[in-house]
């Protein structure tokens, strides 16, 4: 019972209390209430038209049907536009995606869009409920003889008819990847659900698809109360890719301005001009931590995070590892680098090897100290915890992107008595690192660390360029907010929305 004295008593007591609390919570949890019978019945009675319906020459089809390529995409989407059938009593809904007459995207604020959508959906649903009406669209490859109501995959690719609520004037067809046939036996079978083998087959067939190389026919009809109009057919059409995405013009401009600033500061630094960078506490502690490990005769542990080698955080971690490895090589301190990704491991080996070569000690470089541990998140954390307590590492560096394992790493290192320095842009994990580690480089500090440590003109210029980019963004943002405020007080919503549109992003 010796372990129940001192720290052991606290640990055991804490664990018992936590387990009791969790057991109470676990026993107290109840099953969620099942759906009531009336809810299930209401869902089952929802109207759904059955096709084919008898054609009624008295019902008029939609007017002015046209097919256009969806702008600013890779060539996997088409837009069908039409004017409502004169028999369609639902209020005509504006086209959301692209306004052909104005030749541009309609801009609305998110709240405005949501409000209008709810109004239109309610009106369309009401009209549909009253008359069970709407539009039905079918599609087939031009090479296929006729449109099918229930495609079985034997005579053509599977494409179920699409039903559109009344009042709509546009359909965005981005479903091409499931349709294109390859050769005689590439047609997807109609049975559902598909078997795992069929899913595999579908996936591989999709990988070969290029909708831009296939031509398509469409037909659209209006239906109402179990009857449908004659079709309007649009033949031999297909999507095409666009080289320039106009919605990303603001990204291009921001990139250009930032690049110009960075390049200017790099040239300025190379010309010998002294560039000031304020000191950051965590960075100054890096040298101290390596020195501490040397004095104690214990190793340094370095982790490059959980992201791939193409991630910015991992690249920044590599630069910092180079600095740490150089100091460790000079002092003859052992450095351990367990890796989560084999490609990252290869890159880190290069970084450490070059550091040892650069200080004239290539013979001290041991490749086996930078090794692949495992690719699984928590297995990696368990392995790291084991290394910390068994190797008794004097300094732990966690640089890169981290997920839920952050507290396991940081807390174990704290219990092992290591000095711990963190650099990450993972804002969800920063709180854990801040409470459990000695120094934390947050976000931009982490990216600026490489420049601060190396003092290389290229990196310093880059840091200064980013600084002034941030300044520009802050100035523009402040100006935009002030304009929006004044416009809002004056009731000029158009100006406020236009200001916001300058910073519109792809999914807004």
């Amino acid at each position, binding site marked *: 019972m010796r*372990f129940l004295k001192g720290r052991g008593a606290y*640990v055991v007591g804490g664990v018992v209390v936590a387990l009791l609390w*969790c057991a109470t*919570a*676990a*026993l*107290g*949890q109840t099953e969620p209430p099942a759906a009531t019978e009336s809810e299930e019945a209401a869902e089952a009675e929802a109207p759904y038209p059955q096709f084919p319906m008898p054609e009624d020459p008295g019902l008029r089809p939609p007017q002015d049907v046209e097919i256009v390529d969806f702008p600013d995409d890779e060539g996997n989407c088409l837009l069908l536009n039409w004017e409502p059938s004169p028999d369609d009593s639902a209020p005509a809904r504006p086209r959301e995606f692209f306004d052909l007459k104005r030749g541009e995207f309609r801009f609305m604020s998110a709240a405005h869009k949501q409000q209008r959508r709810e109004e239109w959906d309610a009106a369309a649903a009401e009209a549909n409920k009253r008359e069970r009406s709407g539009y039905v669209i079918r599609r087939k490859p031009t090479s296929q003889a006729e449109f099918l109501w229930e495609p079985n995959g034997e005579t053509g690719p599977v494409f179920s008819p699409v039903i559109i609520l009344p009042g709509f004037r546009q359909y965005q067809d981005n479903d091409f990847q499931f349709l294109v046939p*390859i*050769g005689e036996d590439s047609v997807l079978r109609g049975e559902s659900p598909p078997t795992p083998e069929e899913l*595999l087959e579908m996936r*591989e067939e999709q*990988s*070969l698809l290029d909708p831009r*190389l296939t031509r398509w026919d469409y037909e659209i009809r209006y239906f109402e109360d179990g009857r449908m109009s004659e079709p309007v057919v649009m033949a031999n059409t297909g999507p095409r890719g666009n080289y320039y995405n106009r919605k*990303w013009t*603001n*990204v291009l401009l*921001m*990139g250009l301005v930032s690049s110009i600033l960075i390049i200017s500061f790099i040239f300025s630094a190379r010309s010998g001009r002294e*560039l*000031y960078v*304020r000191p950051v506490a965590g960075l100054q502690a890096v040298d101290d931590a390596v020195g501490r490990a040397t004095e104690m005769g214990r190793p340094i542990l370095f982790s490059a995070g959980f992201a*791939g*080698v*193409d*991630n*910015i955080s991992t*690249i920044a971690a590599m630069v910092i590892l180079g600095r740490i490895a150089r100091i460790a090589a000079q002092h003859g301190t052992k450095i351990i680098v367990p890796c989560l990704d084999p*490609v990252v491991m*290869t*890159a880190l080996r290069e970084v450490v090897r070059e550091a040892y070569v650069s200080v004239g000690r290539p013979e001290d470089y041991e490749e086996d100290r930078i090794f692949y*541990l*495992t690719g*699984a998140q928590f*297995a990696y954390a368990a392995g790291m915890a*084991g290394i910390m*307590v068994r190797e008794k590492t004097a300094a732990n560096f966690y640089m890169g992107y981290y997920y*839920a394992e952050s507290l396991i790493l940081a807390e174990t290192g704290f219990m092992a008595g290591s000095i711990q320095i963190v650099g990450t842009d993972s804002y969800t994990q*920063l*709180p854990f690192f*801040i*409470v459990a580690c000695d120094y934390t480089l*947050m*976000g*931009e*500090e982490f990216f600026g660390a490489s420049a601060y440590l190396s003092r290389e003109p290229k990196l310093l210029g880059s840091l200064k360029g980013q600084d002034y980019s*941030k300044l520009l*963004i*802050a100035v523009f*943002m402040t100006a935009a*907010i002030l304009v*929006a*405020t004044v416009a*809002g*007080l004056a*009731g000029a919503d158009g100006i406020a929305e236009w200001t916001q549109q300058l*910073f*519109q*992003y792809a999914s807004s």
Partner: protein
Amino acid sequence: MSTPELVGTWIAALLTFCALSFLYKDNPFYKFAEALFVGVSAGYGAAYVVHQVFYQDVIIPLSVCFQVAGQEPSAILQVINRIVPCILGVMILSRFIPSIGWMSRWPLAFIIGYGTGFNVVYIVQTFLLPQIYGMITPLVEIVRPGEAPYEGLTWGGVMVLNTVSNLVLFVGVLSVIAYFFFSKAHTGSYGKFTRFGVWMLMLGFGATYGNTVMARMSLLIGRIQFLLYDWIEGAIGLSLPG
């Protein structure tokens, strides 16, 4: 409970206790669980890559491409798309032959260069613009005639809480940006402003901390539920109250 399930539940329960034993200190039980976990996950990862990546993304597509090469114009493009990454992957393996080990740097340079360039656009699109976009709202919000009635506190037609919230957001964001501005020392009134930014950061981190801790508690509860219901009730056969 079938025999395989029974054995699996017992193994899972015992390994759970082995892992939890690390709370006291490093011990042989934890070492066993750790070695098993790391080894199994590494082996599973290797098998996953071979089956899900190499077999499904390389072998099968290439075989399909070669079968339909005469009928499908895009097949040759797809062959190139698969072959080039394979060549780059093989180049990484050149490290095992010292005389051509330099070739392993090319794919690394490609991946890092691609990642950096791609991320510039990705980060601006995903993180920078949405945050700026969300920031651009009027600082002062007023109640307008004809709109839905506002039920919150108002003063002279101004929505007080919304306005205060917008002002805190605006000043908070500017102060945090100032904190991450490296070209000026944090001294004087500017230093105090950046100090306010640090406070804003810590407030945000505190909220995140509390939120995430509760999520971790739910994970622990899930593990306790496994021990209570699957192991004690299902495998051992004891009945629990409730």
